[in-house]
């Protein structure tokens, strides 16, 4: 029931690869076998098997498919969902599910009032371990309804693993010069009415930790500025229109500070409280060079950013008050000196960034403490990594399928999935968990 600790990641990798090799076989078995499956083992202890039983009630198939897919995408459990079958009734045959490799069974039903009733069976203990009732919005299959079902998946994941899932989150990205949003499972990709033309191009979206505000770089014929939009009221507010360029906004974890890069002779990192109307103050001094792409450590005490102050782009770290600048990505990995776009993980341990290998960008992480580096991608051009709120998944831009698309990577198991299938997508920004937002 525990996931591999990051420090032991290397030790686990062979097991994970073995599992990955088994997965196609498991999927094939799913396709061809109806009813009972036997003989599948799911590396108990690392990824518990969870059987999502057929759901009773209205829109049951959609609910079951979503729960199952969310658990699968969470990469902490192995979702077992054979096609077909009837909703479970009466007492469960616990030994049968144990033989199937399931350590838990999710039994759900949509009640006549439209809420989702969920029971979690602990197979080893042969009893119901958790029960919950989750109200769902009025309109089945609407984006709000789906978001609520994702929230149920996340709670089930917490029941099973102790850690809440991230299915109830969305990803902002840039498409056709405008901002788009997509659900964590790739559904409901749509523009959100910001930018979309050459006259008003929106770039570099950044979420406020509340999920209510988004800051972005607006580019028009007059250059660039930083704008913050309240997604609840629709009100927009200009945060910075300094002479020169204004780019790459990022909120602090407490939501009270917005950092960004600006300047007309080189760019420096500035910070401002976007809610008080105060003047931005300078954090870094690039002396005519370019500092950009700030990202806060989860305690808000440090900022990582890209700078070319030594002649080529590297990732640096500075105290939030501007003291103690030091280069983070200084070790001799890769063959080209171009590292940029840092994003600090929510658990504070790692900074994801992009680095050129043979002239092509790849996504990597560097350990904030011991500076050990890990390359996460190798196929196509991969860039702009952003952490999911679980500090484990990363969304990034990749050309591996042709045009730029967003992909999601689990940094523990290296499982990867394509998130967007629109014309092209880039600069993904993963929202916080949207448990309270609409």
């Amino acid at each position, binding site marked *: 029931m525990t996931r591999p600790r990051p420090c032991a990641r290397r030790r686990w990798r062979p097991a994970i690869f073995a599992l990955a090799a088994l997965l196609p076989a498991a999927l094939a078995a799913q396709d061809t076998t109806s009813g009972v499956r036997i003989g599948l083992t799911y590396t108990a202890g690392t990824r518990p098997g969870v059987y999502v039983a057929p759901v009773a009630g209205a829109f049951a198939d959609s609910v079951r498919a979503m729960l199952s897919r969310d658990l699968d995408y969470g990469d902490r459990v192995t979702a077992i969902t054979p096609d077909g079958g009837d909703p479970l009734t009466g007492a469960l045959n616990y030994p049968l599910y144990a033989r199937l490799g399931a350590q838990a069974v999710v039994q759900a039903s949509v009640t006549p009032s439209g809420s989702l009733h969920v029971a979690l069976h602990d197979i080893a203990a042969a009893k119901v371990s958790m029960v919950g009732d989750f109200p769902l919005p009025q309109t089945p299959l609407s984006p709000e309804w789906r978001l609520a079902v994702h929230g149920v998946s996340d709670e089930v994941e917490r029941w099973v693993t102790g850690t809440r899932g991230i299915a109830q989150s969305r990803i902002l990205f840039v498409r056709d010069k405008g901002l788009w949003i997509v659900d964590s499972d790739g559904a409901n990709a749509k523009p959100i009415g910001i930018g979309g033309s050459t006259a008003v191009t929106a*770039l570099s979206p950044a979420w406020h930790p509340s999920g209510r505000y988004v800051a972005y770089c607006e580019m028009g014929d007059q250059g660039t500025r930083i704008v913050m939009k309240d997604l609840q009221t629709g009100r927009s507010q200009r945060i910075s229109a300094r002479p020169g*360029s204004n*780019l790459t906004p990022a909120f602090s974890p407490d939501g009270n500070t917005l950092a960004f890069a600006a300047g007309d002779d*080189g760019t420096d990192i500035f910070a401002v409280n976007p809610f008080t109307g105060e003047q931005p103050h300078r954090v870094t001094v690039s002396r*005519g060079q370019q500092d950009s792409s700030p990202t806060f450590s989860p305690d808000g005490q440090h900022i990582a950013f*890209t700078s070319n102050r030594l002649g080529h782009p590297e990732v640096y770290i500075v105290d939030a008050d501007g003291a103690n600048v030091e280069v983070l990505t200084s070790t001799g990995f890769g063959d080209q000196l171009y590292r940029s*776009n840092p994003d600090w993980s929510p658990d504070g341990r790692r900074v994801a960034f992009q680095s050129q290998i043979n002239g092509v960008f790849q996504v990597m992480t560097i350990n904030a403490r011991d500076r050990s580096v890990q390359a996460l991608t190798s196929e196509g051009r991969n*860039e702009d990594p952003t952490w999911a709120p679980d500090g484990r998944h990363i969304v990034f831009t990749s050309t591996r399928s042709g045009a730029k698309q967003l992909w999601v990577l689990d940094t523990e198991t290296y499982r990867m999935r394509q998130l967007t299938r629109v014309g092209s997508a880039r600069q993904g920004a993963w929202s916080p968990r949207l448990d309270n937002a609409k």
Partner: protein
Amino acid sequence: MFVPRRSTAALLMAVVALSACKSKPAPAPAPAPAPAAPAKPAFNKDSADAAERARAAAAAAAAAAEEARRNAAALAAVKATLAKVVYFDYDKDEIRDDQKATLEAKVPILTSNPALRIRVAGHTDDRGSDEYNIALGQRRAASVKRYLAARGIADTRIETISFGEERPVASGENEEAWSQNRRAEFEIIGGGDSIKAPK
């Protein structure tokens, strides 16, 4: 009998006109055209004058148009020189030696038009990071501004912005396209209505 009588009347009128001219009893608006045989009726003189005036006006207009064309061509040349794009090396903001002439040609125009204000926009190719490239384009625009300031152009007359890699002029994943996109563009943002060509 009808036709000769009419020509006689015309002749008579011409004689009257000539005698009037000879005795100068009243100021004639313009010298009468040389008498021709048959002489033109006097009442045509005004329209002839008008035609002459129109011819003169047309000639003057043509000359003015030619002058305007020359001025416009000169102005267009000045504007083209001012707008001529400067190119950069990959991930660099230094002004290349082969690009300095392009900037030098702009200096006399800016010097002889003190009211002229320009905006320099930096651009990049699409190989680097999207976000870093906005900062790189800004650095290129600033580099151009520094060059012109060092040649005596007040830096208050030069705005700098960047479009990063968002507004390419050439598409393609090759050096030819990339080299065209790594550039600084120039736009007049003030004093552009009365530009003089440098002396």
